[in-house]
C-alpha cells in the first residue's frame, strides 16, 4: 500500500516540477518586451562599440596629414602572426643627414588576431585599435592595408 502512495506521490511531484519549468518559460513568453534580440543592421546607427574594443589596427592622422610612426619596427617584432610589415626608406633631411623614415606600414587584417601586442609595443603611440568591426569583403586583397596615408609625414617632436 505504501508503494502505491509513493507511486501517486511520485506522479504529482513529477508533474509539479514540470509545471514549475513551464512557469519559467511562460513568464518570458508573456513578457515580450524583455526580448534580447538586437536587430543588427537596423540598429547600426545607435550601435556604439566600447572604446577599448579591438577591431582593427589603425594609425590616426591629424588634420595636417601627419602621423606619429617613426618606422622603428617594434610592432613588427611584437606581432605573433606577421601581420605587420614595415617598409622604410631613407631620405636626406634639411641638415643634410641621412634618415630612415617610414615608407609603408603594411597591415594584413586577414592574419591579425587582435591581440593588442603591437599597440603595447609602440613607443610613440602611433598605432591604436579601431572600433570598426564590419570587415567582411568580397576580395581578400582588400585586407592588406597601408596604414600611413599617402603623402603623410611624421609629426614634429616625435623621438626617433
Amino acid at each position, binding site marked *: 500500500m505504501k508503494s502505491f502512495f509513493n507511486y501517486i506521490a511520485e*506522479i504529482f511531484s513529477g508533474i509539479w516540477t*514540470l509545471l514549475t*519549468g*513551464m512557469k*519559467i*518559460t*511562460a513568464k*518570458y*513568453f508573456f513578457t*515580450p518586451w*524583455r*526580448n*534580447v*534580440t538586437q*536587430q543588427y543592421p537596423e540598429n547600426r546607427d545607435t550601435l556604439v562599440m566600447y572604446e577599448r574594443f579591438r577591431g582593427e589596427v589603425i594609425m590616426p592622422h591629424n588634420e595636417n596629414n601627419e602621423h606619429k610612426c617613426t618606422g622603428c619596427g617594434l610592432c613588427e617584432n611584437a606581432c605573433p602572426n606577421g601581420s605587420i610589415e614595415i617598409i622604410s626608406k631613407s631620405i636626406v633631411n634639411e641638415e643634410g643627414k641621412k634618415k630612415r623614415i617610414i615608407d609603408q606600414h603594411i597591415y594584413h587584417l586577414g592574419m591579425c588576431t587582435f591581440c593588442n601586442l603591437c599597440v603595447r609595443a609602440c613607443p610613440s603611440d602611433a598605432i591604436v585599435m579601431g572600433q570598426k568591426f564590419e570587415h567582411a569583403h568580397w576580395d581578400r586583397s582588400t585586407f592588406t592595408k597601408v596604414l600611413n596615408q599617402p603623402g603623410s609625414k611624421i609629426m614634429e617632436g616625435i623621438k626617433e
Partner: protein
Amino acid sequence: MAFEKYDFTPITQSIHQGLIENVSPLLTTIIEWTIIGVLYLLFIAVFGLFLVYAERKVCAAFQQRLGPMRVGPWGIIQTIADFIKLLMKELITPKSVDKFLYNLAPFIVIIVPFLTISVIPFAPGLQSLDFDIGVFFVTAVSSVGVIGVLLAGWASNNKYSLIGGMRSGAQIVSYELSVGMSLITMVILAGTMQVSEIVELQRGGWFLFKGHLPALIAFTIFVIAGTAETNRGPFDLAEAESELTAGFHTEYSGIKFAFFFLAEYINLFIVSAMATIVFLGGWMPFHFGDWAAFNNVMDFIPGLVWFFLKVFGIIFLIMWFKWTFPRLRIDQILTLEWKYLLPINLFNILLMATMVLLGWHW
C-alpha cells in the same frame, strides 16, 4: 440557437443540389470529390506553413527572441520562402538505399494526415466524412504513419536513421494505446463514436466539464500521448537532434523532407483537433451555466472561430511542452507509457464506466 446561423449545411446542400440538377450523379460525385480534395490540399499546405511560422514565433517568444523578421513584415512569408527553397532543392537519393521503399516512405507519412483530416468537423456542416465510427477511424488510420517512419529509417541505409525509425516504432506502438484508451474513456461518456454526434452532445457543456475528474485525467493523458504520437519534444526521440542528428529523415532532402516536416505539423493539428472535438466541444461555444447574456455573446462567435481557437490553445500547449522540457530517453518513454499512463488509463476507464453507470456526470 444563435450560432446555428453559422451552419455550413445550407451552402454545401445548395452546391450539391445545383450540381445534381444539372449533371449526372456520377459527375456530381466526381466534382464534389475534386472540390473537397483541392480544398483539403490547400488547407494542409497553407495551415502547415502557418504552423511552421507559428512554431518559430512561439519558440522565439519562449526564448526571448524575435524569430524570423526579415522576409516580409514580421517575417510572415519566411515559411513560404523556405517552402519554395525546399521545392527547388535537388532530391538526393543516396547510393545504397532501397530505392522503392525510400521513395515510398514520405508518401505514406503524408497520406495519414490527409485521411484523418476528413473526419474533423471544422464547423457545423463542414465535415466531409461523417462515419458512425469516426473516432475509431482516426485512431486506426493515424497508426499507418509509423510504417512510413519505419520504412524511411530502414530504407535510408543509415544507422542513425535506423535507430530513429526503430525508436519511433516502439514509441508510437506504445502511445497508440494511450491515445486509444483515453478516447475510449470519452466514448463511454458520449455513447457514440460518430464525431458529429460527439460534438452535438456537448451542446450543454464540454465533455471536459461534464465528465469532470475522469475526463480531466483522460485529457491530460491524451495530450501527453498525442505529443508522443506526433514525435514532438520532449518525445522527439526519433529525430533526437543531439543524438541522431536528424533521425529517420537524415537522408531525405528537398520536397521529400518537406513531406515529413509537413506531416509532423498536420499531425499536430489533428491531435489538437481530436482533443478539441472529444474534450472541448469541437466548434461549440463556451457557455457558462445560467449566464444568459454571456452565453448569447459567446454564441455570436462563429463555430469555425471557436474550433480554431481551441485547436490553437492545444497546439500552444504542445509547443510549450516542447520548448520547456528536456528529451526523455527511449526506455523512459516506454516506462512512462507502460508503468504510468496505461495503468492510470485503465483505472480511468473503470472510473468513467462506473460514473456513467451511476449517472454521476453532469
